[in-house]
């Protein structure tokens, strides 16, 4: 008999840190004092922070209980669209913790940091090979900062040509970070409507592109999970008017070994190492968002850049065209090490296989659910598929009700209400690390929920039933913000 993973068990309550403990406790082994006290200036010194005093056991129990309130990909399917919640190899965590890496200082001479510089250098080269780009910087700390770095590079490119363009084209299916990154760089984002088949048409782009437009930001596959198959033609249109093509690589998990964006007209793009390259998400970071460029933009990359001279890896600031720096040091190196390990463990065939199976899984889910949930775009999808609540609306059931109920079955909800072009969107990205049995069970759960929507909609409206807390009052949180205790 099929058994869903969702079950009820004993969940422990746990107060806030400052609601427990007792003055005088300490969970830290204070290092030996081998120097005398020196006088301090009372005018500048304070009482110190008002922290709770806890024992080591208090702290361990606190965070162990808190952790048990979290769902994670190690505990179950986490099909958040565009987030690529794949399994993260445990062996990579061990590498990051090695003393040579963990205790290394970012500002001592490069000759004392050869190991880590080699990893970073090889990772840059490998990412360039995967994307078909020529040069990369690992400095951006997350995808959105990679986008910002990319926008700054585009800005610097136009300035080097004596131009100051004011607009940038952003498709209506783009992640919110795209227009936000463009705006941070002073560009006015101009929305491009996607066509009836969910993809961009060259005509729509041509009608908006002009000499005052810096370029276009394209996510490929787009957030409907569809390959932008006019990308080469669109790049031609943009380039003909002096613009550049930015590639948002958030969805690169569909394309490893299949398509190199640099070969289809993309000039600059970012990758998310915490998505495609299996670095874990950490409940919201740290991430890493390397920016990769074609040759003509290489001089604009952030500094320092890693160069190889006489068999040694060195850090060079000597790139006068650079946009500058986006991170105090070299970016989130710990995350880079995990991505590097993942790539080494997978090899060329493994990466291609990952993309193939990611796409297979998404199409399988789409195929098995399309008769139950509305499927706005029929064609073969890439690594994710987008459904909607249209069929369930007649029972006054919304996407939110559906996905809250999914929790009771033991699954994390997909991405919801995004992309904006599909009302009530349910965006499912299973990733390649989920097995057929796991997907079959998930599909059965989704079908069961559709049945409940029809027969007993109240179950969905009050869902979830098995979680530690019920639906939370988000309006209250926003109206009377309480952000600290």
């Amino acid at each position, binding site marked *: 008999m099929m058994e869903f993973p969702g079950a009820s068990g004993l969940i422990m309550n*746990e107060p806030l840190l400052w609601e427990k403990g007792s003055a005088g406790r300490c969970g830290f082994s204070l*290092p030996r004092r081998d*120097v005398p006290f*020196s006088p301090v200036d009372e005018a*500048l010194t*304070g009482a*110190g922070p008002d922290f709770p005093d*806890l024992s080591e056991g208090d702290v361990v129990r606190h*965070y*162990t209980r808190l*952790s048990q309130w*979290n769902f*994670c*990909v190690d*505990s179950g399917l986490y099909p958040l669209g565009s987030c690529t919640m794949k399994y993260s190899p445990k062996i990579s*965590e061990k590498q990051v*913790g090695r003393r040579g*890496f963990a205790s290394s200082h*970012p500002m001592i001479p490069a000759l*004392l940091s050869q190991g880590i510089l080699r990893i970073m250098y090889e990772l840059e080269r490998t990412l360039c090979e995967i994307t078909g780009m020529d040069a990369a910087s690992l400095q951006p*700390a997350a*995808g959105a900062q990679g986008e910002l770095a990319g926008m700054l590079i585009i800005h610097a490119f136009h300035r080097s040509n004596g131009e100051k363009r004011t607009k940038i084209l*952003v498709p209506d299916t783009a992640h919110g*970070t795209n227009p*936000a*990154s463009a705006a*941070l760089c*002073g560009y006015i984002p101009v929305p491009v409507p996607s066509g009836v088949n969910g993809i961009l048409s060259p005509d729509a782009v041509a009608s908006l592109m002009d000499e005052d437009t810096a370029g276009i930001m394209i996510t490929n596959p787009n957030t409907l999970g569809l390959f932008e198959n006019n990308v*080469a033609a669109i790049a031609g249109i943009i380039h003909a008017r002096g613009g550049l093509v930015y590639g948002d690589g958030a969805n690169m998990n569909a394309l490893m*070994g299949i398509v190199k964006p640099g070969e289809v007209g993309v000039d600059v793009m970012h990758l998310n190492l915490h998505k495609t390259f299996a670095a874990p998400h*950490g409940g*919201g*970071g*740290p991430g890493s968002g390397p920016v990769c460029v074609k040759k003509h933009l290489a001089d604009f990359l952030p500094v320092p850049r890693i160069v190889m001279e006489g068999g040694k890896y060195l850090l060079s600031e000597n790139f006068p065209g650079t946009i*500058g720096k986006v*991170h*105090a*040091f070299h970016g*989130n190196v*710990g995350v880079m090490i995990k991505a590097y*390990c993942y790539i*080494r463990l997978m090899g060329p065939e493994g990466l291609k296989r*990952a993309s193939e199976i990611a796409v*297979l899984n998404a*199409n*399988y889910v789409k195929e098995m659910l399309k008769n139950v949930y509305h499927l706005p775009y029929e064609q*073969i999808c890439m690594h994710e598929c987008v459904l909607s609540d249209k069929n369930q609306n007649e029972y006054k059931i919304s996407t939110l009700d559906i996905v*809250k109920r999914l929790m009771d079955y033991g699954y994390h*909800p997909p991405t919801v209400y995004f992309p904006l072009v599909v009302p009530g969107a349910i965006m499912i990205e299973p990733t*390649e*690390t989920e097995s*057929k049995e796991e997907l079959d069970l998930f599909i059965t759960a989704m079908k069961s929920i559709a049945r409940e929507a029809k027969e007993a909609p109240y179950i969905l409206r009050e869902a979830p039933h098995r*979680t530690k807390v019920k639906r*939370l009052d*988000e309006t209250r*949180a*926003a109206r009377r*913000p309480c952000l*600290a*205790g």
Partner: protein
Amino acid sequence: MRFIPHTDDDITSMLAAIGLASLDDLFSSIPAECRSREPLNISEAVTEWELNDFMEKLSASMASTPEYKIFVGAGSYDHFIPETVPFLLGRSEFVTSYTPYQPELSQGTLQAIYEYQTLTARLLGMEIANASMYDGASALAEALLMAIRVTGKKQAAISTLIHPHYRRVVRTYFEPAGYELIELPYLENGTTDISPVSKIDDLAAVAVQSPNFFGCIEQLAGAAKAAHDRQALLVVSFTEPLAYGLYKSPGSQGADIACGEGQSLGIPRSFGGPGVGMFASKMDYVRQMPGRLVGKTIDAKDRRGFVLTLATREQHIRRGKATSNICTNNSLCAVAASMYMASLGAGGFRDLARLNYDKAEYLKNLFKTARFKVPFSSLTFNEFVVEFPPNFEVIHRRLMEQKIIAGLPLETYYPELANHYLICVTETITRDDMDTLVREVKS
């Protein structure tokens, strides 16, 4: 392939369900001219054991503590980390979850971040803190952009004693928007000269770092007055938050925004990242804040719970009009910082801060006794500047061969400071280490 569970039979039956004959058919929507013709030219796959051997060799090639005695801080500090922090932080539930968009399944992360926000606000003496930024440098850039939004003005005065890399990041963020940055010079005592502020008309913010890049404690109350007299905000940056276990917090001195790097709080240096950008402000400015915020609320049964809140500031709702483009932040590092602060507690934090201060004073006095110049007279925390005789770089290099890194040369960043070195001492440096350093420097 151990991370991909599909057998050949699985693949065959799934393809059949979709109505396709081969995996390649899945990509039939991609025009042929877009498809890669060659396989990826990258290294062949390695086994777990090969990876271990290889990484161990690379790790061993790094100069790391404790073999090396590294007297360099400059924004990246070596502190003892209680084993409980990596142990608890390594739990899958924290490591392999996403941003807590679905609060019913994410109360662990949400409460942990709410606690982080609270402890951060208490440490910095501010009313509220956000869920984290990438690092201290981008936090400063975002703080200045926030001050520009709050005040509607377009210039920012920034101390030359803010970490040079942070200033570079600020310039990078400011460049395309065309906001003006005015650098404030430093005084003989090693603190910022605030006086030029009174002559700036369109001033949105005054930014100082305390302890500053020379390790000196700034006169924050004076900086606050100068900023507020011009209807500008005071932004206090920092690279070493442990200092606030001894010195007065930015908030208590009149800071409107306090932001900086939290790596010191239980996070390994890891070649400079990931750390955590700490970001706190007055409640009045909350709607202009960048980044995620976790707020307290109740569930349908009136029980306490936590959610991401005030999302109308953010990119996924406001798109081009958001207060920032930040999405993924450094959440797990924020949780590490919170675990660390909770482990030390008020007493431990105060005692550890005092120990860092006393160690640095001990070394400073050793240098002075050995007749080296300590050029800046202001109070410091765990870093300070020493002026060595000309050609000290020869000794610096020799010491490096002896696995002692005797400070960071300042001339690269401050050309007028030839032979000046920034020296850092934390609790991980023993009295013996310090005695050895001064003895070797003298010889």
